[in-house]
């Protein structure tokens, strides 16, 4: 039988279940960024760590086959551009850059605080995809012994 890349079947089975819980926790932290401690950066790092978990367990060849790396890599600058677009929409709607032009809602509701929720989601996706891309590139990188590449 051919040796599959990655760790043992025990680690793979546990990762298959636990990685969804980690991603869910990251999404929770991102969406509740304006209500409880956390926010886009923290939640994005949680999601990136979930991808890192998959990559450590299954090996980077499998991850490269499963995931559309091109799309994930393009998502990161796209979210940066969306942040700018929200800022420029602030000029158009409310008169100043990055103005909070959406409806504020009631305090302590999930959908409240206008722009902050939108920007949290954008930053979360951007941080998650950016860190995942770096880890993926590091996993693909091969060190040579002394000689040049």
């Amino acid at each position, binding site marked *: 039988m051919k040796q599959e890349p990655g760790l043992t079947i025990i680690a793979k089975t546990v990762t298959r279940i636990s990685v969804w819980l980690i991603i869910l926790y990251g999404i929770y932290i991102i969406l509740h960024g304006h*209500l*409880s401690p956390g926010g886009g950066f923290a939640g994005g790092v949680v999601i990136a760590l979930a991808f890192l978990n998959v990559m450590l367990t299954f090996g980077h060849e499998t991850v490269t086959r499963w995931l559309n790396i091109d799309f994930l890599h393009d998502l990161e600058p796209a979210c*940066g551009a969306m942040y*700018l677009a929200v800022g420029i929409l602030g000029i158009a709607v409310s008169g100043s850059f990055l103005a909070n032009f959406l409806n504020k809602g009631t305090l302590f509701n999930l959908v409240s*605080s206008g722009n902050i929720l939108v920007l*949290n989601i954008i930053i979360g996706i951007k*941080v998650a995809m950016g860190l995942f891309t770096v*880890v993926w590139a590091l996993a693909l990188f091969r060190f040579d012994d002394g000689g040049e*590449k």
Partner: protein
Amino acid sequence: MPVETWLIFILSFMLIGSVAALEMKDLLSAIIAIGVVGLGVSMAFLLLQAPDLAIVQFLFEIFSVVIMVRAFIKRDYHHQTTPSNQIGKTILVIAALGAIFIFSINVFKALPPFGEPLMTTAQYYLDNCAKETGAANIVSSIVLDYRGYDTLGEVTVLFGAILGALTILRIKPGAKPDEEEKS
């Protein structure tokens, strides 16, 4: 126990960790000792009632330790043996640090007491944040509303860092691992 006692305890723990990271012969042990320092910073943030910073610091510490282990585990870095005639330089450095400390005692006396900063800008945010932005988390409202332009800068810095990492590693996104090994 008051917060200061715990902070001094954590700080001494971090000092031991950083000295251990310098003195370890094994590279993996040194990386783990660096991780102790970061987790100490995270606990200090938590004790100073900044859970936002504590979460981010904790996660980034785990992330950086994993990346450092991944990057350095294949390399054979041997601990360089330091020459033994360093006593004169050590005495010089300790004397210089002592002189700086003696001259800065007056500065320490002039500092405001712990927890009572001179700047009172934060009081404005505490009073007006909830009704101006509608966010219950004041840190989030400052980062993304009052100081949204700074966050745009952070986003740009992150983008530049990732661009630099991909450029140095010279990996095209979407390239198959097999092709990359051949080239």
